[in-house]
C-alpha cells in the first residue's frame, strides 16, 4: 500500500475561562490536531482501499500523542474525544472512512483504552472548508455534559488530492453545562454508553 505523505500538521488548543457565567475551577481545554496528507486514491475509483488503514496507524498514534502532550500530557485529564476527515475534491467520501479504525485506535492507545465509541464526521471539501468535529465522553456516550464540538479547518487544505484527518480531545464538560442528563460521575463506564 502507498506510503503516508504528510504535507502539513496543525494543532489548535483552546483554553476556555468562561462563557459569561461563573468561572470553572480550572479552565476547559479543547484541542485538535489535523494532518494533511496526500490522498493516494485521488482522481479515480479504486476498489481496494482498506489496507491503507494499517498504514495510517503510525500517523494516528503520533497525532494522538502530540495532541495529548499539547493538552498537558496526562491521559487521566482527557474526558472527551472525537475525530473527523475532510476529503479533497478529487477524492470520495469513502476515503474519509479510512480514518475510523486508525483514528479511534490511536486515541484509545494513548488514553488507556476508554470504552465509548469515538464520534466522528466527514465530508468532501475544498481548501478552507470547516469541519465541526463532534465530541462525546470517552467512557460513556450518553454523558450529556460532554456533548460538544470543535470547529477545525485550514485555509490551504485539503487541496484536491489531499486528505485532512483530525483528532480532537477535551479536558471536561461544556464550561457552563446545566442541561441535565447522565452526569459523568454517575456512569458505570462498562458498555461505553452509560
Amino acid at each position, binding site marked *: 500500500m502507498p506510503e503516508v505523505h504528510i*504535507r*502539513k*500538521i*496543525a494543532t*489548535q488548543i483552546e483554553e476556555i475561562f468562561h462563557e459569561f457565567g461563573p468561572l470553572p475551577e480550572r479552565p476547559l481545554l479543547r484541542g485538535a490536531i489535523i494532518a494533511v496528507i496526500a490522498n493516494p486514491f485521488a482522481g479515480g475509483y479504486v476498489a481496494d482501499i482498506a489496507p491503507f488503514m494499517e498504514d495510517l496507524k503510525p500517523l494516528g498514534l503520533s497525532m494522538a500523542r502530540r495532541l495529548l502532550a499539547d493538552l498537558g500530557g496526562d491521559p487521566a485529564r482527557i474526558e472527551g474525544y472525537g475525530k473527523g476527515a475532510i476529503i479533497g475534491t478529487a477524492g470520495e467520501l469513502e476515503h474519509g472512512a479510512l480514518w475510523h479504525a486508525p483514528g479511534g485506535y490511536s486515541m484509545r492507545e494513548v488514553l488507556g483504552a476508554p470504552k465509548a465509541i469515538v464520534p466522528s464526521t466527514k465530508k468532501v471539501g475544498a481548501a478552507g472548508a470547516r469541519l465541526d468535529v463532534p465530541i462525546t465522553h470517552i467512557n460513556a456516550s450518553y454523558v450529556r455534559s460532554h456533548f460538544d464540538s470543535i470547529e477545525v479547518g485550514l*485555509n490551504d487544505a485539503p487541496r484536491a488530492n489531499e486528505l485532512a484527518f483530525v483528532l480532537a480531545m477535551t479536558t471536561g464538560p461544556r464550561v457552563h453545562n446545566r442541561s441535565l442528563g447522565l452526569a459523568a460521575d454517575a456512569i458505570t463506564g462498562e458498555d461505553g454508553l452509560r
Partner: protein
Amino acid sequence: MSASIRKIAVWVEETHTEMGRPIVPPTRKAVAVAVIANPFAGRYVEDLTPLIDIGAELGALLGERCVRALGIEPAQAQSYGKAAMVGEGGELEHAAALLHPKMGAPLRVAVEKGAALVPSSKKMGGPGQDLDVPLGHKDAAYVRSHFDGIEVRLNDAPRAGEIMVAVAVTDSGRPLPRVGGLAHDQAIGKDGLR
C-alpha cells in the same frame, strides 16, 4: 485595568512538504489569540488608556504562548505579527489602542530583540470571521522570505462586546522562498529594516 479573558486559543502549523518537495526542517508558525471583554463596547469613550495597558499585557502573554507552542528559545523566533478584530459593539480605534502604543515592547521581550516594526492588521468583525495576521521578519523588515501571514478564526468570537487579539510568531519563513531579496542570514538586524 487588566484584561478580562474569556478564552485563549493557540494554533501551530508545520509544513512538511510543498509541491512535492520536502521542507527540512518543516517551517512552523504559531498564533495565539485572546478573546477579551471590550470595556468600551456600546459607548464612546475618549480615553483609551485601559485598552492600551491591556495591549501591553497581551503582548507578553500571547508572545510567550506562541514561543512556548513552538517549543523554541525566544531568540529562535524569526518573524512576528499582530492583529485585532473588534466585535460589533466596539470601534476600530479600540483595536488601535490594543495594538499600537504598548503591545510591541513586551512582545519583543518574548521573542528576544525584535528590531523591526511588528506588522499588523485590524478590523471589525463577528464570530466565525477570518482575521489574517501579517508576518514579517522580527529584526529586519526587508527580509523577503519571511513576508507571510496566518489566518485565525473562532466560530464563537468575537461577540458584540468582545475583542479578539492575535499575536503570531514563527521560527522560519515561507516553505519554498525563491523571489530574491534580502535573506535571513544576510540581515544585520540593527535598524529594523535590513
